[in-house]
């Protein structure tokens, strides 16, 4: 009879212990997924390195991809395009030719969106378009709109970031060419906090499988996802807690314009969007992360923008001299540009199924 009491006490102890653990588990799960606890989770090996390819130059950038080919532009050889067959590792050196040979340009950027390629310069401004395989670039837009960033989203539309003449602030917009060229700007998407130019600086991303566009802020923890008409804007935050851009601006003179006067706190370096997932490379360290390893690894955080959740993180090896510059998702591959190297990684499917 006394033993009965003891057993009840034991049972009580056991079930309380189990209960406490389960509650802890459930609430921790909740917090990590939805709150800004800012601690990362690293599942083992969500990506597997396939191979590195030495390109010989560090001036290559990702211009685009189709199913098995990656196209790389080169900022110091602006009319040169490198095609890399990701399966066979064959490379093809291509030369683009403008229809108008006397074309003057300042900073060319090439983007590939199969079956077209686009040659763009936002400072002149002009956009040329040509077919892959023909390699001749014909005029597509000339002089209609200046832009600082541009990303073709289909054969007739190019998403841009420019300065609105109305608000004098950075603005997202779209250049469309149907009968003629039309430019549409939406000044409400980017919300200024300091000057509306530097503080909202960021990167354009586009997911061709779902036709969703992304805008990744460099200096705040926000990223935007919108459809291909720049409407239905979804605002999401990263696991970082920096809401306001931490940059200090100085105006030296009217001619020189505004300059950043102190090193800014960069929250997000570069990103990619694919399916329901947003991939963001960030050098910000979370809780319990050793601070000396950023010279060896580049951390990429994975978010599900549809659900508004942080999923997990993984890292790519790089060196201080050969830091990750940019990366993109091509099917189930992740391609990275670091130093002179192109890195190809296989994405393990079970981690990247967006609706698990």
């Amino acid at each position, binding site marked *: 009879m*006394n*033993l009965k*009491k*003891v057993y009840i*006490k*034991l049972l009580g*102890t*056991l079930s*309380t*212990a*189990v209960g*406490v*653990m*389960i509650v*802890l*588990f459930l*609430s*921790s*799960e909740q*917090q*990590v997924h939805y*709150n800004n*606890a800012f*601690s*990362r*989770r*690293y*599942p*083992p090996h969500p990506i597997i390195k396939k191979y590195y390819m030495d390109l010989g130059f560090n001036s290559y950038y990702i211009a685009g991809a189709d199913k098995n080919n990656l196209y790389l532009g080169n900022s110091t050889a602006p009319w040169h395009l490198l095609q890399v067959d990701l399966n066979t590792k064959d490379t093809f050196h291509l030369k683009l030719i403008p229809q108008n040979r006397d074309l003057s340009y300042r900073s060319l950027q090439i983007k590939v969106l199969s079956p077209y390629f686009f040659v763009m310069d936002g400072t002149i401004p002009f956009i040329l378009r040509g077919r892959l395989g023909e390699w001749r670039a014909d005029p597509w837009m000339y002089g209609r709109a200046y832009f600082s960033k541009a990303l073709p989203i289909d054969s007739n539309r190019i998403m841009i970031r420019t300065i609105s003449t109305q608000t004098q602030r950075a603005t997202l917009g779209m250049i469309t060419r149907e009968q003629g060229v039309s430019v549409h700007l939406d000044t409400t998407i980017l919300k200024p906090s300091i000057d509306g130019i530097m503080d909202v600086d960021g990167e354009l991303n586009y997911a061709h499988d779902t036709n969703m566009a992304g805008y990744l802020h460099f200096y705040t923890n926000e990223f935007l996802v919108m459809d291909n008409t720049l409407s239905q804007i979804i605002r999401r935050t990263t696991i970082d807690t920096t809401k306001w851009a931490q940059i200090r601006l100085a105006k030296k003179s009217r001619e020189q314009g505004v300059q950043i006067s102190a090193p800014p706190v960069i929250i997000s370096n570069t990103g990619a969007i694919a399916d329901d997932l947003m991939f963001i490379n960030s050098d910000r360290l979370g*809780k*319990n*992360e*050793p601070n000396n390893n950023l010279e060896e690894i580049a951390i990429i955080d994975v978010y599900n923008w549809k659900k508004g959740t942080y999923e*997990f993180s993984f890292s790519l090896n790089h060196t201080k001299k050969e830091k990750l510059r940019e990366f993109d998702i091509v099917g189930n591959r992740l391609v990275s540009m670091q130093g002179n190297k192109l890195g190809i990684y296989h994405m393990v499917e079970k981690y990247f199924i967006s609706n698990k």
Partner: protein
Amino acid sequence: MKGSKKIYAWFPFSISMLCAILFIYAATSKLMDFQQFKIQLGQSPILTAYADGLVWMVPITEYVLALLLLKDSFRLVGLYATIALMTMFTTYIILVLNFSDYVPCSCGGVLEELGWTEHIIFNLAFIVLSIMGIVLLESKTKPKPTQP
């Protein structure tokens, strides 16, 4: 009678000593490599959000339990607490293995060589031993106050 009386005395005592040694070892090895422990706890998939507090709580609790177990007058409480802690740890392992998004790289600290399954068996053994200790201790001490 004599033999069984002896077992009432020495069994709970040795169990307690065993547990105390285990706890002291576990806590000390955590503190010895505190930075590592902190990182591992933070990356454990279940406790991430509470890692800051737990990183101190766990070794302190282990030391306190060891003290309770070593002291004659607190041994019973100590054994109950041991069961609670061991059950929590076992539950944690089961949750990690079954319900977590991923299984963390088997963390070190205590008994690094053990796999997760071995760890569960190891824990269960300690729980069972502690329960036996409690039952013996309770049936030894309880009758006295109820008799008069």
